[in-house]
């Protein structure tokens, strides 16, 4: 008891109490505009381990932009949740990679938490939108709240087991009918030759997104002639699911499920395990983005480096009406928005935009997408060739590029801008080249969503309860849990729970935005 005298304990207890009290009063301090000017705070998604803030790559980037960079890297899986929580806090970073259509961002932006960049970007050569359609897609009710991060405008495709096609003597599909024939053959004609009927045609996972989110269902509906999200019918914009083509496409797919042409666990298969049944030889087709083809190729190569050329990629298909309708993508993935919390004046905004302009310059894009030339890669014609990957320091640079910094690029991305990575083998090179050929071909028949930039206030207020109605009903219908009548009743339920207002608002806002 001599060491811990009573007085000492008393002092300790009071200190504890004070510490706890002061901890709660913290957080209110404000950095102020001036202090922040030589530092840029950013929030961006992360696909692996976070880069070292003093790492070689970060230092190179800081040298280029002439400012200290403070990036909050958030794992991609929880990026949506984390951005919503960040938007609710008083710690919004200066530059935030954000989904500009998410209700909480729209609310925050409309309340004035972010800069309206409409018409302000043309001054900056590297921030100026390079594609009209994409620029329009990334707007929110006619306003530009961020600099879009470019992606290929069309990535949809069908990945098919090449060796199964050859074994069964089938050709690559051109029409939806061809696709059905192939699926049927994959399910019933024993493509793996083990004498058992243990395969299926198409693999579909539990889709994490809602309606019109590039799911296999959305793509098939577009092939059948349904609008992509929203479409004009009788001079009015209607949601894509309120069209006969939507019902027809799903009736067709329902037949697939019933006949066992689709994996039986399509409602629950984790989308992270989407490749597994394909590589394991359980299913032979995936409708998804084209890069899945190279992914699968790599997986087959891992399994058997001598015999891996088992994947082929096919573009969009002709529907039952004999016409081809292709499913385009939005051309971007999230935008970089600038918060008003620390960037208060137009001058400060100009400074931030100038910094970003440097970041997105040619040199910046190469830093963000390829790394440091001569350190982790060298240039060989149009390709980047990895260098010294056995050196742990170089490996760290490569990791920082691939898993993190590439996310800060708005003009360069996978296969766009900067240098493309030189493919490892002939098969992947051929596949990569196919991407552009198929994209340019399919873009001719792309069905764009005319209401992509329009956000109805009712959708912001009630979106969460409305958004699940249609995709849930679709899955239930496909699985046979409900009839077509009940599916129609669910569509009516969507209208009754606020959809009617959304349709009206979308039409009004779209007329105001000039189509």
């Amino acid at each position, binding site marked *: 008891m001599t060491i811990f005298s009573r007085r000492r304990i008393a002092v300790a207890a009071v200190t504890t109490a004070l510490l706890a009290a002061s901890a709660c009063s913290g957080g209110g301090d404000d950095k102020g505009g001036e202090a922040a000017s030589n530092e840029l705070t950013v929030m961006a998604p992360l696909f692996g381990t976070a880069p070292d803030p003093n790492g070689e790559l970060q230092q190179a980037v800081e040298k280029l932009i002439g400012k200290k960079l403070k990036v909050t890297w958030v794992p991609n899986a929880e990026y949506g949740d984390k951005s*919503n929580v960040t938007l609710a806090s008083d710690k919004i970073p200066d530059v935030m990679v954000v989904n500009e259509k998410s209700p909480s961002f729209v609310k925050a932006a409309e309340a004035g938490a972010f800069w309206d960049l409409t018409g302000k970007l043309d001054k900056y050569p590297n921030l100026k939108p390079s594609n009209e359609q994409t620029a329009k897609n990334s707007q929110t009710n006619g306003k530009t709240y961020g600099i879009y991060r470019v992606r290929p405008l069309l990535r949809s495709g069908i990945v098919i087991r090449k060796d199964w096609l050859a074994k069964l003597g089938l050709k690559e599909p051109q029409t939806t009918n061809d696709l059905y024939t192939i699926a049927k053959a994959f399910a019933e004609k024993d493509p793996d030759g083990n004498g058992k009927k243990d395969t299926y045609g198409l693999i579909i996972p539990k889709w994490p997104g809602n309606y019109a989110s590039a799911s296999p269902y959305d793509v098939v509906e577009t092939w059948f002639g349904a609008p992509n999200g929203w479409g004009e019918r009788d001079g009015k914009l209607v949601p894509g699911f309120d069209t006969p083509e939507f019902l027809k496409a799903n009736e067709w797919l329902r037949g697939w499920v019933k006949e066992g042409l689709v994996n039986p666990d399509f409602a629950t298969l984790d989308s992270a395990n989407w490749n597994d049944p394909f590589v394991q030889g359980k299913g032979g087709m995936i409708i998804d983005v084209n890069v899945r083809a190279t992914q699968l190729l790599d997986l087959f190569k891992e399994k058997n480096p001598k015999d891996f050329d088992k994947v082929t990629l096919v573009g969009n298909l002709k529907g039952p009406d004999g016409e081809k309708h292709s499913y385009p993508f939005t051309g971007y993935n999230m935008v970089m928005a600038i918060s008003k919390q620390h960037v208060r004046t137009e001058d400060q905004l100009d400074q931030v935009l100038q910094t970003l302009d440097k970041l997105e310059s040619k040199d910046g894009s190469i830093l963000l997408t390829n790394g440091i030339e001569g350190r982790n890669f060298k240039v060989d014609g149009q390709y980047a060739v990895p260098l010294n990957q056995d050196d742990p320091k170089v490996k760290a640079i490569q990791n920082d590029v691939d898993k993190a910094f590439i996310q800060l690029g708005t003009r360069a991305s996978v296969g766009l801008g900067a240098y493309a990575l030189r493919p490892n083998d002939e098969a992947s090179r051929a596949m990569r080249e196919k991407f552009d050929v198929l994209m340019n071909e399919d873009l001719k028949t792309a069905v764009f969503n005319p209401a992509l930039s329009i956000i109805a206030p009712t959708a912001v207020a009630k979106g969460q309860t409305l958004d699940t109605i249609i995709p849930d009903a679709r899955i239930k219908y496909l699985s046979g849990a409900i009839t077509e009548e009940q599916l129609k009743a669910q569509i009516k339920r969507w209208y009754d729970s606020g959809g009617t207002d959304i349709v009206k608002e979308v039409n009004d806002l779209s007329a105001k935005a000039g189509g």
Partner: protein
Amino acid sequence: MATDLVPEVVQPAADSSRPAPAAKRTRRARNLPRDLFRYRWLYLLLLPGLVYFVVFKYLPMYGLTIAFKDYVPFLGYSGSEWVGLKHFQELFTGPDFGRLLFNTLLLALLTIVFVFPAPIVVALLLNELRVNVLKRSVQSLVYIPHFLSWTIVASLTYLLFSVDFGVIANWIHGIVGGQKTDYVAQADWFRPLIVLQLLWKQTGWGTIIYLAALAGVDSQLYEAARVDGAGRWRQFWHITLPAIRPTIVVMAILTSGHLMDSGFEQIWLMTTSLNRDVADVFDTFVYYIGITQGSFSYATAVGLFKGVVGVVLIFGSNLLAKRLGQRGLF
């Protein structure tokens, strides 16, 4: 324990140690300043705990005010507009309320009927085991699932019950035949699976407190009963059960406060497009509208409603317990 020859001190009956409450209260009030001074060091020791509760449990309650505002983060707590009971009105008249309440209460009912008694039964069964090694190893084994996260439990469930490759699903299919049932996706199987998961994960852990209560039963009582000719069943009915009754009552009261908590992680992980109608509960609803949708005020209103119901239930069941002649929690 039964062969223990050393007589233990007979515990005084609990009620005899309680002085008349009214008299004690006035005396306590009068002596409060003096007691405070006299036990000042003890009170000082209490301080950190008190501060913890004030700082982390009571002060944040200020945030509940946004349930009555249209909270826009950019405008802050004070800048957002007061809207009164708008969000509560929206909740109670909204299209989801009935379904959410039904799902939440039904799950709570299933939990009370199947999950609450399970640890009691297991504890009683373990208590009857006479081979100590067996008893202890079983005890340790049934604890283990408690330490697994819900993510792992959900993944295991998918692995075991998946319609494509689920071991148990295929096994049942082999016995029953007919069409394959998709246990993890179908709405009809959602609640049974939730209850099964809860039983598997929580039963073992729950036995600890009952086993502790059972260990405190005076072995002389059993000896006396045996002398009087009581069999195993009689001993159980007249000694064991009354001995752990207070524990059961306290646990029941504590559980009642969580009636509206369905366990967010578990439900959220098990929700699919096919079972959402039966899976949506208040906990997941708060997540969807608050975190996903960004309607912070509405989500807070739902959470506050849940909290109020929880408090009412705790007080209600405490009162009920007292009415039924048990010693309540407070």
